[in-house]
Structure formats: structure tokens, C-alpha cells
């Protein structure tokens, strides 16, 4: 009897959360989807246009660059964060001296906001202020580092700053995973005399799949909502070379008074991410069962 009322109570407590989630998350998501089929400009309108906004969106050169940048940025960001995060975690796992110091150092960028990260890297990479100027003053006149002002390479500076910011978190995740590995496994590895690189590659890392999944999900969210870092570092420039979907959507919603086009871009972004993430999630979770 008591346990049933407990269940009831806990369900009751969840009701407000449920209402809020349904209304603010799903409600607004669906409304955005609906607006993308209308001719909403400055204010929401209900005139139905069908797929017209999508057609116009996909003939917009700026959107194509922003969309492609999502893949360049996302792919490299995920790859390098996981690579460096994993590598640092394995190195720290060797019970080195000063472990606390290194862990804190690598995790430190996480404590900075993305806006600060973006500004700091902008100063460092700016050819007339930062590293290039320093190198020139030290006598290396051939040294050039102008990626942040180059329309070909600007997006890679965003990757650089984001990897710097995100690697620490992935490292800590992996380190927690490594520390949770059963001591007996290590003992048998020693007994068998398996070299360390094989032990990690064939035995230890495969056990960390769930952690890899968590890391990739966390980083993917960062890719989709990447806005502040880009605004602070390049503001999408030069031109719109380093534009990303979130900035495009914001611009069309608020600065360009084109709500429907922004909504169409938002739908395309979310759909793309779901198309990539859902199959991966499905495969992983099935395997883990």
C-alpha cells in the first residue's frame, strides 16, 4: 500500500517537469517546424508556402557553407577531442608523478566560457597582435600564421580553439573509465606478459565503449549549438567562410527578419544530427544489451 502511494507521489512530482518538457521542448520544436512551411518574415505568419523556404535555403550560398562547416567542424572536433582526450587519459593512467597537476592543467580550459576562449584565441592568432607578430619580433620573418583571417582556413581555427576547450573533459571521462577497470584484468595482463600498447588496444579500450558513447553525445551537442565560440573568434568571417548553422539561424531570426527561413535552417540542422546520431545510438545500445 505504502509503496504504491510512494510511486504515485513520485509520479506526481514529475508531472510539472513533464509538462514543461512537452510544452517548451516538443511544443516549440513542432512550432518551429510549422513556421518553416509559412511565409513568416518579421513576425510569425500562417500563410502556407509548403517547401518553398527549403528550396530557397538550399540555393543560398551562405547556408551551404554553414552546413558544410558543421561537418568539417564537427568531424574534426569529435576526432581530435576523443584522440587527445583518450591519449592523455592513458598517459595519466601510468600513475605518473604530479598527476593532479597535469589533470588540472588539461581540465582548466573547461572552466573558461567559450566567449573568453574565442577572444583569447583570436588575439593569439591575429597576425598583427599574436603569435605571428611575436615570431617576427624574435627574428623569424618568414613565419606566417594567418589562418584566422583566411577564408580557406578560418574554420580550422574554430576547431583548434574548441579542441583546446573540450579535450580536458573527454580526458577525465576516459580516465574515470580506465580507473574503473578491474584490477584482476591488469594482474592477468602482467602475468601473461602482454605489452602495454596491446593491453590497451585489445583489452582495456574496448571496455570503454559506453564512455566513448557518452563522450560523442556530449560533443555532438556542442557541435550543433556552437555559436558563442564562432561569434567571439571569427564572427563567421572572413565573409561568411566560418559560418555555422546556429549563427545562420540566429541571423535570419533576429537580424534579417526572416523567421521562416531561419526555422527551415533549424529543421535541417536538427534532422541532420538526428540522422547521424540515432543509428549510432541504436547500434551501440543494442550491442550493450
Amino acid at each position, binding site marked *: 500500500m505504502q509503496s504504491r502511494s510512494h510511486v504515485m507521489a513520485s509520479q506526481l512530482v514529475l508531472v510539472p517537469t513533464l509538462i514543461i518538457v512537452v510544452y517548451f521542448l516538443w511544443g516549440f520544436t513542432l512550432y518551429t517546424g510549422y513556421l518553416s512551411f509559412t511565409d513568416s*518574415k*518579421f*513576425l510569425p505568419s500562417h500563410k502556407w508556402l509548403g517547401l518553398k523556404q527549403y528550396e*530557397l535555403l538550399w*540555393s*543560398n*550560398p*551562405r547556408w551551404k557553407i554553414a552546413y558544410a562547416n558543421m561537418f568539417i567542424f564537427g568531424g574534426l572536433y569529435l576526432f581530435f577531442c576523443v584522440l587527445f582526450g583518450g591519449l592523455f587519459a592513458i598517459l595519466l593512467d601510468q600513475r605518473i608523478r604530479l598527476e593532479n597537476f597535469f589533470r588540472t592543467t588539461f581540465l582548466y580550459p573547461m572552466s573558461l566560457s567559450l566567449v573568453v576562449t574565442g577572444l583569447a584565441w*583570436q588575439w593569439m592568432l*591575429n*597576425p*598583427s*597582435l599574436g603569435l605571428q607578430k611575436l615570431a617576427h619580433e624574435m627574428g623569424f620573418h618568414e613565419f606566417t600564421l*594567418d589562418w*584566422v*583571417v583566411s*577564408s580557406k582556413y578560418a574554420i580550422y581555427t574554430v576547431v583548434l580553439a574548441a579542441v583546446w576547450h573540450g579535450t580536458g573533459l573527454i580526458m577525465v571521462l576516459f580516465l574515470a573509465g580506465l580507473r574503473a577497470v578491474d584490477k584482476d584484468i591488469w594482474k592477468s595482463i602482467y602475468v601473461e606478459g602482454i605489452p602495454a600498447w596491446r593491453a590497451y588496444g585489445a583489452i582495456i579500450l574496448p571496455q570503454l565503449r559506453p564512455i566513448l558513447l557518452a563522450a560523442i553525445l556530449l560533443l555532438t551537442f556542442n557541435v550543433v549549438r556552437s555559436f558563442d565560440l564562432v561569434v567571439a573568434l*571569427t*564572427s563567421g*568571417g*572572413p*565573409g*561568411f*567562410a566560418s559560418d555555422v548553422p546556429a549563427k545562420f539561424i540566429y*541571423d535570419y531570426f*533576429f*537580424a*534579417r*527578419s*526572416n523567421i521562416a527561413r531561419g526555422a527551415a535552417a533549424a529543421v535541417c540542422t536538427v534532422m541532420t544530427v538526428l540522422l547521424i546520431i540515432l543509428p549510432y545510438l541504436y547500434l551501440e545500445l543494442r550491442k550493450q544489451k
Partner: protein
Amino acid sequence: MSSLKKQISVNSKFAGFVAGIMLICTPNLWAGGDVVHWWVGDAESKALKVIVDEFERSGSKWLDTPHNDSEAAHASVKSRVIGGNPPAAVLMVVGASSKEWAEGGLLNDVDSVAKSENWDSVLPDGVASASKQGGKYIAAPIFISTVNWRYANLSLLRSVGVDEPMSWGAFMTSLPRIQKAGYIPLAVGGQDWQETLLFDHVALGVAGAQYFRELLDGNMNTIDSEDTIRVFTAMRALEPFTDAGKAGRSWGDTNNLVITGKAGYIFMGDWAKGGFLQANKTPGQDFSCKISPGSGMVLTAVDGFAFPKTSSGADQATQGKLASAMMNKDVQTKAALLKGALPARTDASTEGFDHCSQNALVLLGSGSAALHWNVRDSGFKGVLKDVVSQFWNSDMSPEQARKMLVDGIKQL
């Protein structure tokens, strides 16, 4: 137990504090006017203070709601109006933007104040029509800003033996000579609005005022013409005369290059003049201000406040009082002097204005030589900004840029 009690009392005190803050922050509870703006710079806030003092002289309370930039300010006001909690007034570049708001039904008109104070007779025609929608005043215009100035460091020009050029051709031939002497010929910033402003100057100087007027009108024949290619080509020709540090540079830093004698010219709006004056430079002697060479056309933007929709009579009365304070003749003169702009009213005194402002006044007075810049909606301006900035920062050809501009406008 006692510590728990203590905690509870602290918590309830805190709750009371929060509730108090919320009450204070709810503008509806004040009989005063909640005004949203982004005039947070030194000169701008001093100018705003003049308006605040005039408004509060009649016993009303000004509630200041500053934002960092126009986009953030307008996004917040838009949702406040729709959510039923509108501010009393919001800063705008009067013209296309305020009309967009009025057409969306988000603004009250202040026509009764305008009628009783006879705004029609004291405002230049262009300013009056920019402030109206459907024949009624929807905004109180305060300043006329002139946006197409070429500032030159005269000491630098003298030292390299260049006379101040008065045509586009002479301007172009002076650039390599300044470069040879080891200076940056043209200071250019790296934000897209600065690049678009540069485009405006080139378009006026190379293709002329008529072309620029038709461009702003959205005349597709003009936009798709050879003239557009000439303008993009001329803009590209300026690039070798700019420095590598331009990327991402703010207008203030760019302006400083000219003030400190590192660069020869800058194309900028009248807000750049304040920097020269603050560095104790004398116009006509240390630096010069000229309408962009070869154009003879002054581009203007009107700064003013619009009044969000509200049905409450008390709020409407506050809006009327605000409008009246903003349109006060002496207030406009005093504030314009502080901000470096021109008063919107033709009968406001222009005593004490320097010779740059006086030049602008002469051009404005002759009517035909003034072109109101904010005539297109945000969508059109956005396309122009995208194309110009992308062209300037890549190896796109002028033909490609024209095609992108035409396609972009068609797809609005």
C-alpha cells in the same frame, strides 16, 4: 534545530529580497518610461542624458534599459511587445526598420503630439517621411547622422607631398605614393558592416549618386548592370593599399590608425570624428572631412525612438511626453553636439558645430544632395552585407559577386 530555523529565516529574507527585486524590475509598476537603447558609448550616453533630464523635468521617471547592440535590444523588445509587457520607447534607425515594426502592428503612433507640436513644419521632408507610416508619425527623430565621410590625416598627406584628392581618380593615384612613403594608405576594418560601408563609398565615388539611389531602391536592371561590376572591380583595386591587420579589426582601432598618423585615409560615418577631436586634432588643419570623393551626395541615417504598442492610457501619455522631450529644440542641439551628429529639426540652433558638421548641413539644406540610407528592409541589407563581405574576403570575381547579389535579392 536552531540552525535549521535560522536557515529558514534567512531563506525567507532572501525570498523577500528576490520578490522585491522582481517588483522593481517589473516596469508596469512604474508610472515612468522604460526606454530600451544601445547608446552605451561615452559620447552617446552623455547625449542621452540630455534627453533624460528634459523628460524627468516634468516629474516623470526614466527607467533605463540599455543593451549592447541593436540586435539584442530589438530581439528583446519584440518578445516583450508580443508578451504584453512593452517598454515605453525603443531606439531605432528610423526608416525601413521602424516601418517594418509598424507594419507588424508592434508600434503606437505619436501623431497627436506631432500635430500639436507641428513636427511637419520643423523636420526636413526626408526625415519626416522616414518617421511616418500610413501618414502618421510612428517615431520621434532626434539626430541625422551622415555616414559617408572620408577622413584624411592632413599632416601625413603633406609630409609625403600629396594634395588632398577631390575626385575618385585623384584619390586612387595618391594611394601608391602614400604606400611608397611607408604608411598604410587606406585604413579598413574587418567587420562586415565596415566592409559594406566601404562598398557604399566606392559605389558613390565610381558609379555615382544616381546608381546608388537605384541600388537602394532595389532596381534589378541597375543591380544587374555593368556598373555593379565596375564598383566591385574598383573595390578590389583598393585591397593592395590596405594592411594585413585589418581582419576582425573594430572601427575604433581602424580610426586610430589615421588619428595617430599610421594611415592616410578612412571611410567612415560622422561618429569617427569624435576620436580626432578627443586627440586634440583640428578639422581642416590636422585632419579633413570630405564627403566621399566624386559623389557630391551625402548619405544620412536618422536616429530616433519608436513607441511600442500599448493600450494603457497612462503608458500612452508617457510615450507622448517622451516624444515631446526628444523633439525639444534645445535638447536636440545639445545632444547632437555631444554625439557629433546633427539635430533632426531644421530650426534647432547649429551654433558651435565644427566645420565638418557645417559642411554636412549645407549639403543637407540643398535637399537634392541628400539620400536617406535606411530605405531597405533588413533582408535586403543582409544580402548586400553577405555578398560584399564575402567578395572582399575571398578571390571571388566581380561577375560572380554581381550574380550572387542578384540571386540573393531574388530569393528574399
